[in-house]
């Protein structure tokens, strides 16, 4: 078995083991596993509507995953993607409904930029705290998540005159598309997936093509050597955080301009930002890997919605099964080791 084969086998075997363990859980709790998985499958790929919804679900996961992965690649752990995403969501929604009289080709980009800037600014704060005052970014970003949640809620209250959500954004700022909707039996699929895929290219380009990317990676891997070679460690830390936050902010824009077309007061975190950590790790922090991770997360999340309806499995059990599948994919390392052991034994003979 070559390395290449192992690289492909690992995720496949991981998913299969996850499915088997999930089946055992269903069987033990007295549900038909086959029906459960058929429902899961139908919830993901059943018809053009579910496929549209699945892609819609994947979109913000890609951006959250990029945000985390970009930070990881530059030596930072951005747990604040959740907060940055919430700020981006609020900013995009505000620009989307409050700025009037612009044509779509200005208004929509403006709303997207507002979201990117809001997320970037939120991460910039943590970057400055780390670069200037040596505050660990994990602590700073966790705290900034709470601040973001409540700041955004307070802003929405003002914007909505005491209501619990803003007005709908104007059509000129929307990512929605009658074309995509009609193609997918009126799912909420919107153009955001194009934005997300574009950002995948952007991350690859920054890290692997630009001079700045070389610096960011050098600072992330070894800031002593970076300093020795004359790079500004502080500036690069702040910049890395800011770019990461930009991706997160755009993730918020997907919800504001595509899925919901408004921003509402939230009782708690959306979870997308935190799932972004898992998405990035599943994708080994590479841009293409993030697409894979987000696809897995988004698909399972969306498919799971169908399991209670079609197979009568309670949502709690569904959550356990989804978690198990993701767990086994994430522990791919174990499977890799087992495969390699198996491999070397065979060669030994």
């Amino acid at each position: 078995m070559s390395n290449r084969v192992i690289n492909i086998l690992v995720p496949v075997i991981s998913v299969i083991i996850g499915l088997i363990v999930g089946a055992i859980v269903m069987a033990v709790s007295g549900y038909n596993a086959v029906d459960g998985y058929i429902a899961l499958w139908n919830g993901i790929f059943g018809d053009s509507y579910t496929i549209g919804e699945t892609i819609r679900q994947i979109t913000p996961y890609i951006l959250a995953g990029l945000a985390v992965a970009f930070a990881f690649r530059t030596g930072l752990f951005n747990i604040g993607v959740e907060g940055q995403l919430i700020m981006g969501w609020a900013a995009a929604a505000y620009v989307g409904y409050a700025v009037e009289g612009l044509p779509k080709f200005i208004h929509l980009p403006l709303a997207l930029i507002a979201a990117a800037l809001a997320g970037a600014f939120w991460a910039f704060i943590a970057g400055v705290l780390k670069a200037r005052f040596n505050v660990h970014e994990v602590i700073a970003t966790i705290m900034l998540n709470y601040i973001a949640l409540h700041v955004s809620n307070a802003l929405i209250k003002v914007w909505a005159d005491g209501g619990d959500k803003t007005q709908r954004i104007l059509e000129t700022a929307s990512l929605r598309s009658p074309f995509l909707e009609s193609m997918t039996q009126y799912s909420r699929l919107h153009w955001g997936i194009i934005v997300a895929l574009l950002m995948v290219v952007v991350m690859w380009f920054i890290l692997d093509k630009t001079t700045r990317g070389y610096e960011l990676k050098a600072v992330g891997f070894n800031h002593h050597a970076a300093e020795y070679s004359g790079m500004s460690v502080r500036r690069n830390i702040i910049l890395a955080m800011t770019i990461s936050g930009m991706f997160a902010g755009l993730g918020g824009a997907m919800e504001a301009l595509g899925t919901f077309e408004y921003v509402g007061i939230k009782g708690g975190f959306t979870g997308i930002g935190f799932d972004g950590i898992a998405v990035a790790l599943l994708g080994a922090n590479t841009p293409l890997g993030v697409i894979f991770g987000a696809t897995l997360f988004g698909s399972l999340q969306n498919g799971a919605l169908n399991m209670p309806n079609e197979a009568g499995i309670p949502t709690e059990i569904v959550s356990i099964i989804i978690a198990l599948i993701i767990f086994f994919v994430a522990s791919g390392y174990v499977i890799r080791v087992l495969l390699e052991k198996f491999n070397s034994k065979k060669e030994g003979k």
Partner: protein
Amino acid sequence: MEYVIEMLGIRKEFGGFVANNNITLQLKKGEIHALLGENGAGKSTLMNVLFGLYQPEAGEIKVRGKSVKITDPNVANDLGIGMVHQHFMLVENFTVTENIILGAEPTKGGIVNIKKAANEIQALSEKYGLDVDANAKIQDISVGMQQRVEILKTLYRGAEILIFDEPTASLTPQEITELIQIMKRLIQEGKSIIIITHKLKEIMDVSDRVTIIRKGEGIGTVVTAETNTDQLAEMMVGRQVTFKTEKGPANPTEEVLNVQDLVVLDYRGVERIKKLNLTVRKGEIVGIAGIDGNGQTELIEAITGLRKIKSGKVLMNGQDVTNKKPRQITETGLGHIPSDRHKHGLVLDFTIGHNIALQTYYQEPFSKMSIMNYKEVSKKAKQIIEEFDVRSGHGEASLARSLSGGNQQKAIIGREIDRNPDLLIAALPTRGLDVGAIEFIHKRLIEQRDKGKAVLLISFELDEVMNVSDRIAVIHDGEILDIVEPKETNEQELGLLMAGEKRKSAGAVKGDE
């Protein structure tokens, strides 16, 4: 003849790269057997085969005459083979006892019996004259002591055959003497030892026989008493090695570096450089001799812009670079081979190619309009790899981490010399390297000098300072005590100066200040 270990015709490949080929090593009971080879010759690979970390492609291993298959380190342990690693594997905030029993805790009713273990370890320590306090914490004991803990760990697990991997690399001369005594004691108690090293002097001092490998090939085994360092060096490198560096007289011209009344604080705010003055001219090599910790690190960091200067001035080519940023100083014509190649010299997770661009990545042709041209980077890398004989598995695409220390150092030196700096600061450029690599690096430094460039060499090795420099500045307690010429001094005098005992006649006596 009784052999405790026989490794016969061992061959080990890593995907096409032959790390060991047809190597035979036979260890007699009760001997100290040295395994000699250059950096990257395959010594560690061979020992990892013996320790069960790698499986050989061909060859046979016999332990006490019986053919064995060592599939993992536990098998090696059961066979009584113990390894004292170069980089200690100890938990800093555990005690000696806790570290030694880690993974093999003696339990009584499910509870670890620390007391019993501590007594056993103390007894072992006394038996072999190791003088280790079983209850001390690792973080509180010296590096030499930590190494003895590693030795105790193998003894506690019943090792009869001990492998020492570069045991003297991080020890002081005093600790090295003690280690040699400990090894001899171990032999008296019936143990057998393999010592991996590239230091010829140690081999002559301690070993009974030597097995030499070169570029993965077994060259042969000789009896230490019947050989000498010249012959060993030749067998190791494959050609004659000159220990005395050949060089003509220096032709110093104008001043490149001028350090005036420099004062530098360390991170605690203590003055480490005290009104230091130093000049380096084009066409000369100035060596800074001194005992570790007398301000060498602070001096280099201040000159290169990595540390704040409290007062005084640094002039490079006549420009004031005091407290300038590292890049501004570099661009005045400074090259810097840092003392810690892993910390400052390399980004270990970058490829060698990317590391070679570390100082110049932002300049054309490597970067144009903020876009990297990695093709140009690898072209330059290939040129330097070729010119400086940097050996690695996959050329410029190998991760810096995967190279041996000597090759990492050659890559750094190549990178710095290729920029042709007016002043090259070489801090401990040969630390941990074998004679072949040392000779190569010294030649390169002298070549720079002969091209009319200035070199500032910082070293703890007196031999090196004496051989390579044209002037020697002795640093003690943050001051330059004296500047001497190598031919007008000897090691004794330098040693005394380094200890701060002799002052320049013009200087004041310390108490008067």
